[in-house]
């Protein structure tokens, strides 16, 4: 039995045919020179051999041989022809079998990939029904294959609160890839944070379904929140340490100062001198602590810039006055020259002051009976902007190039002995350089030993928008952009930001952008926009957190905020909460101000208050009734909806956190397809939303602005109309500074 014998190409009859691709007839196999030695003795069973190649086109897939044992019989042309008729069929059959096996193996392989994947994988029909899922999906969501197949995915793993968001993902995924982070619900009802990735599945250009991947990021987000709170703890530590260290030190300095004064009054020179030593050591220690804390703060990334527009001249005068005693004590002379056409500087005033004091105190420290100068001028900088240049020159001991290279490092005065001789902390220049860099500027030194040194600090004239090369703003004026006002767009999706920018610019607004909550807050503080649009669903700090922080900051609380998020494509909604948020406890003045725009509309005397706390309700009611409003009161969302129908108000004041039906559900129903009620709503929120509240609020997407492409115009006109409503009022922007 020769089944399974392996032949080399060219070996034996079949081997030769495999090479030649030509048929072969061998009348007497036993005597044939080319016979293979692999076969066992076949003298009795094989007389003649006829072989034909099995070809598919030019490709050989095998060979087929026919033998007989009859010595009187010969294979002839007819036999060969018959074989060759049969050969192609055999070739196709063999090839199909091979392809099928290969396809099977591939199918098994990918099936194993999906089945073994730690990522939950699910495929859907275009309408969202589950067609297949892997064990990881079962594990992640707790449903068995039987329970999940055929079910609507969003119905299965999202609850009422996350439903619209989930639906939006599914509908977006039927058109293009989508990624994000959201909450989903397991079978047991528990909520998990997942990273979602979904794409359409297309065959030959036609979408036949959706592929969705889910990755549990609950732990990751938890770790992130912990890291953030550790980070905040670090900030609090730095702030507290600062206080803890300074307090006893101030006592040491203060008491020794007082006792020295008493000793002086009593003419006790010895005690006076000793007490002075205590006092000055205390002051030195304080300076050291201040510098160390400053540097730690900068290193920890906790040092913030507080930008304001100010005139340089008064600052320079103030600095001169402060440093003068030190200058005089060393027998030095200080010349100050400020260029005439300086213009205002927009930077962190406190830091600029600190830098100037540092440079001047160094200058006078290292100079004796010499001359020190401070020159302030303005030059053109690269990129079309301008710089303000501060140059401090002294006639002090100077530095070698080697010393110059080290002076900006912490704790390295030019040499250790200079600290002992000249005092100081050794940190001043390190801090000065850091401050410079934070503000986008630079510091350089030139020096000759024995002759003197020159330190040059360069700061952009507008630290906030140095990149834009903005023209300097006259001191005291509000920073406004395009005529209609300045809007800050906070959204993690770049296409959305670009879209908003184009649209708003066309409407005459000038636009700032931020890609996440933290950047948004920083930018809001910096730029003081007239209005802010805020995406609720952002991965790091969600919109609610940003909103709470904005309202917490008295300098930002007055800026109207419009919240945006995605929604299912069937609803066209409104900005959640409209243009006003009030924080609790309600400030009566704030309340009056918020309602002022609505007073003048005709018939605007009825107001609906939806608030569960009777005390708050009473306060608000009394305040508003004295203003001439008729106030209806509903205790929760359900009652509120009833009242809206019974006695339509001109305006609704809405608490968010209420039993039975909360503010969100109320709003969603109010704005929903059934009612489409457009009454303006002012939302009232408690200042301190707990993390749990945030989670709950964040999961609930109610009446919102749509990001789908086909209602872009509706979306944007909603925003513009609300912004326009706010911005075209006479400016009362909170820009006054004392």
């Amino acid at each position, binding site marked *: 039995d020769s089944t399974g014998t392996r032949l080399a190409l060219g070996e034996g009859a079949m081997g030769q045919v495999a090479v030649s691709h030509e048929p072969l007839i061998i009348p007497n196999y036993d005597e044939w020179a080319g016979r293979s030695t692999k076969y066992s003795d076949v003298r009795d069973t094989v007389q003649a051999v006829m072989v034909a190649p099995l070809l598919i086109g030019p490709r050989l897939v095998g060979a087929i041989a026919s033998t007989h044992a009859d010595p009187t019989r010969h294979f002839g042309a007819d036999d060969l022809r018959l074989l060759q008729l049969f050969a192609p069929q055999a070739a196709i059959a063999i090839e199909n079998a091979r392809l099928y096996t290969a396809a099977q193996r591939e199918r098994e392989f990918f099936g194993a990939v999906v089945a073994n994947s730690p990522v939950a994988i699910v495929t859907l029909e275009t309408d969202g029904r589950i067609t297949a899922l892997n064990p990881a999906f079962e594990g992640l969501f707790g449903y068995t294959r039987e329970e999940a197949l055929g079910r609507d995915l969003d119905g299965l793993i999202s609850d009422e609160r996350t439903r619209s968001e989930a639906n939006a993902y599914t509908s977006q995924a039927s058109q293009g890839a989508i990624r994000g982070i959201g909450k989903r619900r397991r079978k047991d009802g528990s909520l998990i944070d997942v990273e979602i990735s979904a794409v359409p599945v297309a065959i030959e250009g036609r979408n036949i379904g959706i592929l969705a991947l889910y990755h549990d990021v609950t732990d990751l987000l938890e770790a992130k929140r912990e890291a953030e709170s550790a980070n905040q703890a670090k900030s609090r530590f730095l702030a507290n340490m600062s206080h803890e260290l300074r307090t006893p030190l101030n006592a040491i300095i203060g008491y020794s100062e*007082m006792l020295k004064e008493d000793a002086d009054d009593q003419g006790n020179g010895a005690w006076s001198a000793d007490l002075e030593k205590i006092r000055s050591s205390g002051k030195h220690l304080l300076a050291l602590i201040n510098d160390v804390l400053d540097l730690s703060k900068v290193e920890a990334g906790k040092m913030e810039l507080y930008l304001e527009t100010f005139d340089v001249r008064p600052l320079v005068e103030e600095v001169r006055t402060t440093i003068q005693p030190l200058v005089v004590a060393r027998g030095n002379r200080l010349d100050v020259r400020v260029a005439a056409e300086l213009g205002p500087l927009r930077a962190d005033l406190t830091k600029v002051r600190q830098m100037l004091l540092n440079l001047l105190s160094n200058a006078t420290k290292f100079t004796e009976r010499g001359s020190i100068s401070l020159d302030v001028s303005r030059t053109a900088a690269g990129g079309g902007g301008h710089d303000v240049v501060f140059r401090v020159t002294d006639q002090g001991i100077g530095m070698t190039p080697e010393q110059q290279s080290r002076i900006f490092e912490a704790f390295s005065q030019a040499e250790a002995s200079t600290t002992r001789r000249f005092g100081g902390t050794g940190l001043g220049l390190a801090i000065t350089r850091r401050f410079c860099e934070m503000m986008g500027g630079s510091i350089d030194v030139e020096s000759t030993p024995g002759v003197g040194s020159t330190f040059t600090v360069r700061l952009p004239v507008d630290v906030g928008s140095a990149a834009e090369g903005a023209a300097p703003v006259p001191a005291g004026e509000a920073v406004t952009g395009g005529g209609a006002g300045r809007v800050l767009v906070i959204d993690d999706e770049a296409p959305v930001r670009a879209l908003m920018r184009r649209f708003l610019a066309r409407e005459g607004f000038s636009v700032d952008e931020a890609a996440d909550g933290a950047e948004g807050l920083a930018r809001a503080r910096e730029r003081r926009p007239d209005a802010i649009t805020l995406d609720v669903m952002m991965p790091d700090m969600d919109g609610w957190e940003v909103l709470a922080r904005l309202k917490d900051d008295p300098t930002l609380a007055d800026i109207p905020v419009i919240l945006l998020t995605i929604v299912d494509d069937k609803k066209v909604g409104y900005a959640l909460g409209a243009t006003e948020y009030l924080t609790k406890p309600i400030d009566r003045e704030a309340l009056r101000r918020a309602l002022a725009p609505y007073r003048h509309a005709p018939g605007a005397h009825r107001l609906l208050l939806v608030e569960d706390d009777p005390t708050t309700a009473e306060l608000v009611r009394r305040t508003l009734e004295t203003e001439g409003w008729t106030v209806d009161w509903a205790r929760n969302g359900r009652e509120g909806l009833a009242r809206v129908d019974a006695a339509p108000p001109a305006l609704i004041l809405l608490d968010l956190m209420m039993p039975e039906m909360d503010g969100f559900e109320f709003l969603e129903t109010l704005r929903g397809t059934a009612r489409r009620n457009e009454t303006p709503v002012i939302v009232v929120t408690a200042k301190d939303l707990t993390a749990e509240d945030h989670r709950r609020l964040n999961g609930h997407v109610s009446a919102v602005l749509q990001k789908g492409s086909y209602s872009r115009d509706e979306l944007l006109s909603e925003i513009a109309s609300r912004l326009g409503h706010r911005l075209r009022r006479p400016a009362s922007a909170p820009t006054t500074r004392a």
Partner: protein
Amino acid sequence: MPRVLLVEDNEMNRDMLSRRLLKAGYEVTMAFDGAQGVEMARAGGHDIILMDMSLPVIDGWEATRQIRAIDALRGVPIIALTAHAMAGDRDKALEAGCSDYDTKPVELPRLLAKMAALLGQAPPA
């Protein structure tokens, strides 16, 4: 003699400042927290108030706001004493109703000059 109300929770700070104010010719009353500060201000009789900003019970911002809400005290200047000279704190103090601010640690001549200016007097020698 002008009368100053000093609202400061830290014992040593209170001691140092009050003694030096006395030496500078002021009559000094003291409150130990924000609520007490408001109460004593309300009781009247002060020409000027020094308000530490970080106080227990209610903080200096709130105490200032409450004092400012009392009509009878409208003419009494309040100087905020802040531990930081940050521009933000400055604005906050002024918005809350302070007439001026000074930084801690207190430099007596500077503080005395500010007080004298607010009381419409020449600074002490």
